[in-house]
């Protein structure tokens, strides 16, 4: 059976060229960069330094501004908690958008407990943060503003350039979570006045377990891990050298090929988007044009998201509902099963908040795979609607009204 993976927003397959770059660091070059008196350690130092320069180049930064972490969650935690603490006494407010990832939102819990005041900025129905609202929210005692670059669930790209300008004028540290965007659309810290930027390797064909936080020179961030003096003191612990090398290799590829990928993804994404229009009562989510290439998200009236995804999977089509974290079936109890906070933020009625579907295409997807999805969907929708009491009521209303 043909299988089509359309969940690249959760993770991307490792590019084989990236793996080749990593391979030696599993076997021949196994040194620890902190133990650099000998050749093995030296090789590791050089590898990590080179990767740092490569990741920096992807976003127009200096090598010394890149701190390697274990991934986006750690980067976001370090940015939010580290910047709040680093801002010093008197700055006890944090401002975030309503559609941030859990690793930003949940990092606010300890801050609230410590007495910080948190302001959550609303978004419009396309999921866009209003720069004017940002202007009004920032005050002299604001330690940090955090607004993501692109939303994984609904694909919307936020006006972070404009928002960053406002933060800069207000003298507020600005964090941008670029997990979903970096490597797919240009992220350049010379154009986006961000002080902190989160990056994740496995979201652009690099390995899992590698991420980075960009820290603009002069930004004050307190560490979250304590130990040796790795990563300029921001992140103690032996570097995951093979993964760091992989992140560097992936950054080079993305920098070089992103334009071609985006073109391919946009073309396939348009086919999918247009094809979906044949399904009655289907509603696209996110901004219609300011969105990630190859990202198509929607919900279908009278069709529950998980059921749709299970049937799609049976047909070999793998897509996602909500963010990979909010739809976690391995949660411990009901509390873990939350209606998507992002959909709630953009005003989708709560009873269909579990019904959002996200197709995120990758560079390896083909037109045939998109066809497979488009061929499978109408039948599944019909089948689930035929089972749905709400659809039955809808039909009866139609007949009566008819």
């Amino acid at each position, binding site marked *: 059976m043909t299988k089509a993976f359309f969940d690249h927003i959760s993770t991307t397959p490792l590019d084989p060229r990236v793996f080749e770059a990593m391979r030696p660091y599993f076997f021949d070059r196994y040194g620890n960069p902190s133990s650099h008196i000998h050749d093995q350690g030296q090789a590791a130092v050089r590898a990590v330094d080179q990767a740092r320069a490569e990741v920096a180049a992807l976003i127009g930064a200096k090598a010394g501004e890149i701190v390697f972490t274990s991934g986006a969650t750690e980067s976001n935690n370090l940015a939010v908690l580290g910047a709040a603490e680093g801002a010093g006494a008197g700055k006890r407010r944090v401002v975030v958008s309503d559609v941030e990832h859990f690793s930003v939102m949940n990092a606010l819990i300890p801050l609230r407990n410590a007495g910080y005041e948190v302001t959550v900025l609303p978004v419009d129905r396309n999921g866009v943060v209003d720069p004017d609202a940002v202007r009004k929210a920032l005050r002299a005692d604001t330690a940090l503003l955090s607004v993501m670059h692109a939303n994984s669930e609904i694909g919307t790209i936020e006006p972070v350039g404009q928002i960053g300008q406002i933060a800069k004028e207000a003298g507020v540290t600005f964090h941008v979570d670029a997990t979903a965007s970096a490597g797919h659309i240009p992220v350049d810290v010379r154009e986006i006045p961000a002080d902190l930027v989160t990056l994740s390797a496995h979201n652009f064909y690099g390995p899992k377990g590698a991420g980075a936080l960009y820290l603009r020179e002069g930004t004050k961030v307190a560490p979250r891990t304590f130990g040796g003096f790795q990563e300029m003191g921001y992140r103690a612990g032996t570097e995951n050298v093979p993964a760091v090398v992989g992140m560097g290799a992936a950054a080079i590829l993305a920098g070089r090929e992103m334009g071609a990928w985006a073109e391919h993804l946009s073309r396939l994404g348009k086919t999918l988007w247009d094809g979906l229009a044949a399904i009655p009562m289907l509603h696209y989510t996110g901004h219609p044009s300011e969105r990630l290439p190859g990202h198509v998200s929607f919900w279908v009236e*009278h*069709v*529950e998201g*998980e*059921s749709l995804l*299970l*049937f799609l*999977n*049976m047909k070999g089509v793998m897509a996602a509902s909500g963010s990979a974290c909010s739809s*976690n*079936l*391995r*949660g*411990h*109890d*009901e509390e*873990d*099963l939350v*209606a998507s906070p992002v959909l709630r933020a953009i005003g989708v009625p*709560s*009873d*269909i*908040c*579990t*019904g959002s579907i996200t197709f995120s295409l990758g560079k390896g997807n083909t037109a045939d795979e998109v066809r497979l999805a488009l061929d499978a969907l109408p039948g599944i929708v019909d089948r689930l609607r*035929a*089972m*749905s*009491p*709400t*659809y*039955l009521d809808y039909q009866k209303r139609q007949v009566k009204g008819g």
Partner: protein
Amino acid sequence: MAAGPYSEKVMDHFMNPRNVGEIESADGVGEVGNPACGDMMRLYLKIDEGMVVDAKFRTFGCGAAIASSSMLTEMIKGKTVDEARAITNQHVADALDGLPAVKIHCSVMAEQAVKSALDDYAKKHAG
């Protein structure tokens, strides 16, 4: 076939749900919703001489909700009203070879639907 997060039984009832539909002039109709997720189940019962002789359902919900609905209709058919009322969500979940912890509440919807349908039946046949 790998069943993903669900047991084979759940997937079987999800893919081939038994007793989907409506009963015209049902003796009891129950409808329950799950405010946590917005899912909804409607259950129709045909009751003859204190016995559930037919049961049909429509459900808007996740895989666990549909499988629980389907399993429930199989379990209550042929049972007395009292026996049907005694069915709990745990019975339904067990009959499905278990549900993921986060999905237990979906089987609660099935339990509540029978109770609601039987209440409706009792009301209609009061006195």
